[in-house]
């Protein structure tokens, strides 16, 4: 099945899966931080792999990203991505919640470890919900963290979809956390393996 043959109805079904995943991810993040977390209505989009950097912002925007890969009946890849300063704010919120204060001298490795765990919880919650919905089992990788330019991070989509064509199917949504004095938001991006889309549509009975 070619990506361009996907009907609006099928894309809507995939978006609904994203909705269920995001709902669970928002709940988990809210519990972890003890704060209100809002979510956007997710989008299931067919994106040209030649325009990835521009599609999600400016290619040189400095971002922090947590990446996990899920294996099983529905193999897919997820990225939790925030602008660098917002990632810093999110880590501060977590440390405040868990430790009562943010130690200014905390080494970067510890902060990175906190970010990695935050991303892991958000993305695992997302995956748990959708696999529960589909009745599939899955195994999630250890999270990988990167701080870099948005364009270089999104090259990972190219390596997943580039060999088979020019278009990638991406589900994306935002989580908004109300902070002490500012609002911060992070994007959850789901990139299903190309070969897994039929499994997904079959499970949803919209194939």
């Amino acid at each position: 099945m070619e990506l361009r043959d996907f009907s609006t109805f099928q894309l809507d079904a995939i978006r609904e899966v994203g909705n269920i995943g995001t709902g669970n991810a928002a709940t988990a993040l809210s519990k972890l931080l003890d704060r209100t977390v809002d979510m956007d209505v997710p989008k299931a989009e067919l994106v040209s792999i030649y325009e990835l950097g521009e599609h999600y912002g400016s290619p040189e925007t400095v971002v922090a990203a947590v990446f996990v890969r899920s294996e099983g009946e529905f193999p897919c890849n997820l990225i939790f991505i925030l602008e660098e300063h917002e990632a810093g704010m999110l880590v501060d919120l977590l440390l405040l919640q868990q430790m009562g204060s943010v130690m200014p001298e905390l080494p970067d490795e510890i902060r990175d470890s906190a970010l990695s765990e935050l991303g892991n919880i958000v993305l695992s919650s997302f995956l748990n919900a959708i696999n529960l919905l589909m009745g599939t089992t899955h195994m999630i990788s250890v999270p990988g963290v990167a701080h870099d330019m948005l364009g270089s991070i999104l090259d990972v989509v190219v390596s997943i979809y580039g060999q088979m064509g020019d278009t990638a199917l991406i589900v994306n949504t935002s989580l908004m956390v109300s902070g002490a004095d500012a609002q911060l938001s992070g994007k959850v991006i789901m990139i299903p393996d190309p070969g897994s889309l039929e499994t997904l549509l079959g499970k949803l009975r919209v194939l």
Partner: protein
Amino acid sequence: MDAAHHVGMADIIVITAPATLVTLGLGSCIGLVLFDTIGKVAGMAHIMLPESHCSAGAQVDKPGKFADTAVPALINEVCKQGALRSRLKAKMAGGAQMFALAGTQSEFLAVGARNIKETTEMLRKHSISLVASDTGGNRGRSVEFSTVTWMLAVKTLGKGKVDI
């Protein structure tokens, strides 16, 4: 300020001096420059993947996308603009692995290394000497090639700008 030409994903763009070629946010992709300082011509390809032959579609409509098709196509384009094949030299940057997952051997995460290998191999096959490169690692790069200095400026987060 010379005219800056933006080289998007899978693009091949050729310029004549004085001008610059720019690509922002290379991750596993590669920015390959071929240039002829006497003919005053330079071209850049934004290579995304190593090989075209395992691609589903039979014909490649964007030769810049794959290392094995980008190198011959780029040679062709710069020579059309007045470069002499025997004078061509190459510089390249990119091919990083942005994420590493402990305990998993995910082939797609290491596509940068395969891009470097295939591009280097193709240059060797076409007898073009690679005079400078900044490849691999786990950091993204923005690159800018000047046909005034014939230098490739490589910008990495935290490391600043280095001319190669």
